[in-house]
């Protein structure tokens, strides 16, 4: 089975006008405009199989959103080949648009003053969804997203989180096979973020849809995607399993020990660093390769009640990747 999404050497450059602030610069720019080339996406390749959930990671301006916009057909790339479900996205064929959705955290397609149900009916007609399928889909989405009576209230009276749920539902009415989610949880409280995550997981399981999502909430990515693609400054830094990312980029492990009684720490030979001592709990950071030896020494030389060895938080790992540290 061919992959749902196939991207080869994708390049997207923008030319943007540039000038410094101030009146003089403003006059000068009338006569001679300076331009700067922005390499939003600079030669990335990857494939996504049917039913996969893939997280796009990267700092602001990394090119995540640009990549999603190319994939959904909003942007024409500067170079490279993209194939999604056998279509070239930027041809924006009706058959293509009926099979995908792009949901952007801040854009809205709903009529502000009308209940979302009215906007839903517009999408039903535009996408040519037949009555029975429409009814089933609305039921499914209402259940998964707990929409309740949200569809009958004017959109302007909904909270940000409620609106996001309704927006998601509106973008899924035509049962797209590929979902591009750009920051789907941005600006939402923790409970609502959790809810959206559970929904995406459930939707993926229920429909077998392929999902590509960007987020800078690490919790989103951890909860949703087993595979991550890390891009920075338009280039692909990593493509693979989430735990592989941690294994590859985390330079150290965190060892936490609980002692049965007070005791002196053994000599750590400079292989580890004590981060904190809090009563009977000691937190130690050791290099990845030294961790087994350090753990062994702690176990033999201390009266230990409990010991755990953990990878550092994902945020820290990602930060490491973006700063170009690590292997």
């Amino acid at each position, binding site marked *: 089975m061919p992959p749902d999404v196939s991207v080869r050497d994708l390049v997207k450059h*923008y*030319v943007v006008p540039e000038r410094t602030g101030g009146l003089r610069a403003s006059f000068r720019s009338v006569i001679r405009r300076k331009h700067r080339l922005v390499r939003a996406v600079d030669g990335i390749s990857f494939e996504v199989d049917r039913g996969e959930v893939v997280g796009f990671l990267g700092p602001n301006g990394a090119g995540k959103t*640009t990549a999603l*916009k190319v994939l*959904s*057909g*909003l*942007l*024409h790339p500067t170079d490279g080949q993209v194939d999604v479900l056998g279509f070239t996205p*930027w041809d*924006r064929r*009706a*058959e293509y*648009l*009926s099979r*995908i*959705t*792009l949901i*952007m955290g801040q*854009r*809205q*397609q709903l*009529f502000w*003053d*009308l209940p979302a149900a*009215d*906007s839903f*009916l*517009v*999408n*039903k*007609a*535009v*996408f*040519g969804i037949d009555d029975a399928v429409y009814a089933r889909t609305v039921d499914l989405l209402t259940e998964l997203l707990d929409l309740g009576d949200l569809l009958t209230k004017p959109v302007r009276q909904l909270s940000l989180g409620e609106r996001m749920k309704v927006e998601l539902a509106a973008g899924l009415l035509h049962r797209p096979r590929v979902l591009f989610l750009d920051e789907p949880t941005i600006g939402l409280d923790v409970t609502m973020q959790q809810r959206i995550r559970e929904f995406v997981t459930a939707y993926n399981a229920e429909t077998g849809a392929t999902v590509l999502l960007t987020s800078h909430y690490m919790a989103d990515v951890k909860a949703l995607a087993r595979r991550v693609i890390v891009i920075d400054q338009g280039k692909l830094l990593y493509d693979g399993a989430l735990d592989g990312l941690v294994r590859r980029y985390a330079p150290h492990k965190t060892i936490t020990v609980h002692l049965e009684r007070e005791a002196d720490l053994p000599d750590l030979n400079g292989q580890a660093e004590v981060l904190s001592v809090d009563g009977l709990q000691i937190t130690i950071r050791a290099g990845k390769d030294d961790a087994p030896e350090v753990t062994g020494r702690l176990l033999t030389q201390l009266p230990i009640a409990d010991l755990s060895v953990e990878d550092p938080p994902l945020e820290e790992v990602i930060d490491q990747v973006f700063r170009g540290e690590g292997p």
Partner: protein
Amino acid sequence: MIVRRATLAGALALTRAEVADMFQYRVVLFLYSLWEVVHPIVYLAVWGAIAGDGDVGGLRLSDFAAYYLTFMLVSHVTAAIEIYTFGPMIQQGELSPHLLRPMNPVWVAAARNISYKSVSMLLLIPVWIGLVIILRPSLTITTGSAALFVVALVVAALLSFLVGTTFALLAFWTTRSFSFWEIWIGLTFLLGGQVAPVELLPGFVQNLATALPMRYTLGFPIEVLLNRLDSGELALGFALQFAWLFAAALVVRAVWRAGIRQYSAVGA
């Protein structure tokens, strides 16, 4: 041009939603369109004063009343609002969600145009009837002229919509599309049958007005209804009106395609 069935159904659903949406703003809408309908009274007052008890180029006060009362309805039906509705959508990046649906976003502009006019018309008809009672125009409408009027009015509305959309689409390239639109508005004021019926314009200007598209968005349907044209002028008028409609459709298509290329190149 082949239009998908879902597109037509979509446009219809969109228009229904837009109408519901418009009703939320009925008071604003009423005041806004009230000016549009009532301002021709100014032209009528001026021409009435000039005509006095006599006539100007064969038009008496009651003829001017008929012309400008018809003008009120025609100018409302053919008003192009795309520079206010569609242009800002492009400028503010609101086009993207619409581009992701299998329907050309120009339909969104069309739906808004139709809903604006149908809702505001409901509010304005009573005002207009009141004016007819007060102003007593001399109207002799035949079945023939009424039928031709409907055709001329529909084509005028379509032409006007396409012209308005073209100017709105300039927002793909410039933040100053309003300035270009002002030029069109000015030309329509002079040559479209607004400040004066085209038949009163001096020779050379009248020829210009006959050739250019502005008259076909406004003055022409009025002249048709009021039987101001002989059969030769009627035939020429319709020929030119349809020709301009066809040309405008080609222009909108070309500008839309170029605009979308621009939009998807610089960042949607």
